[in-house]
């Protein structure tokens, strides 16, 4: 019994010591934070040499941390105990974070070079007037195909997914908005359609796609397409650019009739400790030279118009990632449809998934 008591007391003492030393260390870090910029970004989503350049130019030290999903990032910032100065979430998550009051308003007078950004990527529905976020990269939803199995001319539009030749050879990304959206787009409807009849019709159309669907998966699509498990897949342009790097038979098409336009934007979370440093980083990334270098390294589409002029012609003329004006004009951002409609989308998508040939 005495032994047990000593043990318990020992544990309590150790916990106490650790707790207070952690507090002490945190405080110390806090004092030094004028000089540190903490950036919270997706894994492998910035050219590392840019971080070095930023440190050299501004004298700040960069503390770089990564996340692998918007949801994980949201939870971590919400829980507190972190001091991120910059985060780079996707558009729907930015809308959610604005609603949960987790973002700092951006002072437009402190931003230099917003005019470098192409106006069509500004003032989007998820953040009207860019009060909270500055575009970092953008992309689309489209079709990836392998030219060993399909000819380019046969797969240009959403409707081409339904062709009988693709029996059991289409992989879909596991997302209700994405798949319901492509069905709506194929019918000339908006992917933000709230009309129950249209949604029912879209689901009916999707059930006819079932014989062609090989699997409805998530990130694994990348691996499957590179290994030529399937001829065609529907996924995001960011994923596509990575697939195209690994298998030269793969190509990416954005259906001209309409598709999704997504964003990853820079924001300043409420956890910010070094606002000056955060603005310095945003301005640094807005500089055309840096944005161009980053776009060339990551392979995603840059919203920075002046940076595009600095990029090699073969990148900016690639309609897979920089589509023409006609296609651009049909792209739409996912709007927050409200919980009720979102439920409708989800239930119909679930019905489609359960539908057997």
């Amino acid at each position, binding site marked *: *019994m005495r032994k047990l008591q000593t043990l318990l007391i020992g544990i309590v003492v150790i916990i106490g010591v650790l707790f207070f030393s952690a507090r002490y260390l945190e405080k110390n870090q806090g004092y030094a934070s004028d000089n540190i910029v903490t950036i919270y970004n997706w894994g492998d989503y910035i050219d590392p040499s840019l971080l070095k350049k930023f440190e050299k130019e501004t004298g700040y030290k960069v503390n770089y941390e990564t996340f692998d999903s918007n*949801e994980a990032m949201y939870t971590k910032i919400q829980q507190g105990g972190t001091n991120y100065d910059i985060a780079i979430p996707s558009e729907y998550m930015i809308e959610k974070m604005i609603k949960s009051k987790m973002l700092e308003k951006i002072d437009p007078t402190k931003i230099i070079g917003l005019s470098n950004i192409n106006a069509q990527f500004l003032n989007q529905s998820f953040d009207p007037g860019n009060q909270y976020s500055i575009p970092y990269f953008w992309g689309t939803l489209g079709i990836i195909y392998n030219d060993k199995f399909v000819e380019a001319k046969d797969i240009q539009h959403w409707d081409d997914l339904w062709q009988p030749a693709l029996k*059991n050879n289409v*992989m879909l990304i*596991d*997302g*209700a908005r994405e798949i319901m959206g492509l069905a709506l787009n194929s019918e000339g409807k908006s992917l933000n359609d709230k009309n129950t009849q249209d949604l029912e019709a879209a689901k009916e159309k999707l059930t006819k796609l079932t014989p062609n*669907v*090989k*699997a*409805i*998966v*998530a990130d*694994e699509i990348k691996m*499957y397409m590179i*290994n*030529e*498990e399937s001829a065609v897949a529907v996924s995001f342009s960011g994923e596509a650019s990575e697939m195209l790097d690994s298998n030269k038979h793969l190509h990416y098409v954005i259906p001209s009739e309409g598709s999704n336009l997504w964003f990853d934007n820079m924001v300043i979370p409420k956890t910010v400790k070094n606002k000056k440093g955060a603005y310095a980083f945003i301005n640094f990334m807005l500089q055309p030279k840096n944005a161009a270098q980053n776009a060339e390294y990551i392979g995603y589409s840059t919203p920075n118009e002046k940076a595009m002029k600095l990029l090699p012609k073969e990148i900016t003329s690639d309609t897979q990632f920089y589509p023409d004006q006609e296609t651009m004009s049909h792209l739409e951002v996912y709007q927050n449809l409200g*919980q*009720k409609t*979102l*439920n409708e989308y*989800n*239930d119909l998508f*679930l*019905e489609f*998934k*359960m539908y057997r040939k």
Partner: protein
Amino acid sequence: MTSTKRMYAVPYFLWLLLFVAAPVLLIVYQSFLGINGQFTFANYTNYFTSATYLEMTVNSVIYAFIITLITLVISYPAAYVLNKTKHKQLWLMLIILPTWVNLLLKAYAFIGIFSTHGSLNQFFAFIGIGQQQILFTDFSFIFVATYIEIPFMIMPIFNALEEMNPSLISASRDLGANSVDTFRRVIFPLSLNGVKSGVQAVFIPSLSLFMLTRLIGGNRVITLGTAIEEHFLVTQNWGMGSTIGVILILAMLLIMVATGEKKRKGGEKTR
């Protein structure tokens, strides 16, 4: 002395309270919340009137039943033979060993085996059957699920068989029963408790497998687990997700009662 004993039990009760009772209560509470946070029975009426959810429930039960049945058919003879081998602890250890490997890793290994250019298809091509679609089928899903659940079925059956008093078998033989009779009337009834715990340990998790439905089933196989995952992560409709959770808990209770009742009766009889 009794107070010391009670003190030892404190962590246990705290554990039960924090990690068993509290989460269950939270789930039940959440299941009565609508999407706007108001109190409602709508989730339950939704569940029981929606053809989608009912069909999904039936599907899940069927898959879980098949998985449990195959697991049992493989595990019982395995446990029986295992119990008769010389180094049984070693063999048992070898069977349990795969459970030390992370589930996700095992799933990815099966993707490698079953995929279009995987080793199994290469073998099929070699013997002239030609390439088959194996991944993303009912077969692959049930195969992998069974593989993963087998140790959880063998363990309790093995323990029940091992605990059996060998003199009972000798007695049965002495009294003139042949080996089939001995098995049917002595060994099997006495190992039934192990079978029951095995069925409980396999059936319930099988109802809500969701990682495998996506990775191996390619979402061509949909279980209740898929729906829960979607409601919590995508639609953020925690109320509906919790409702399905409550229904799974009720299903578990049902199975516990169904497989537990006879145990008590059997106990009384021997008394």
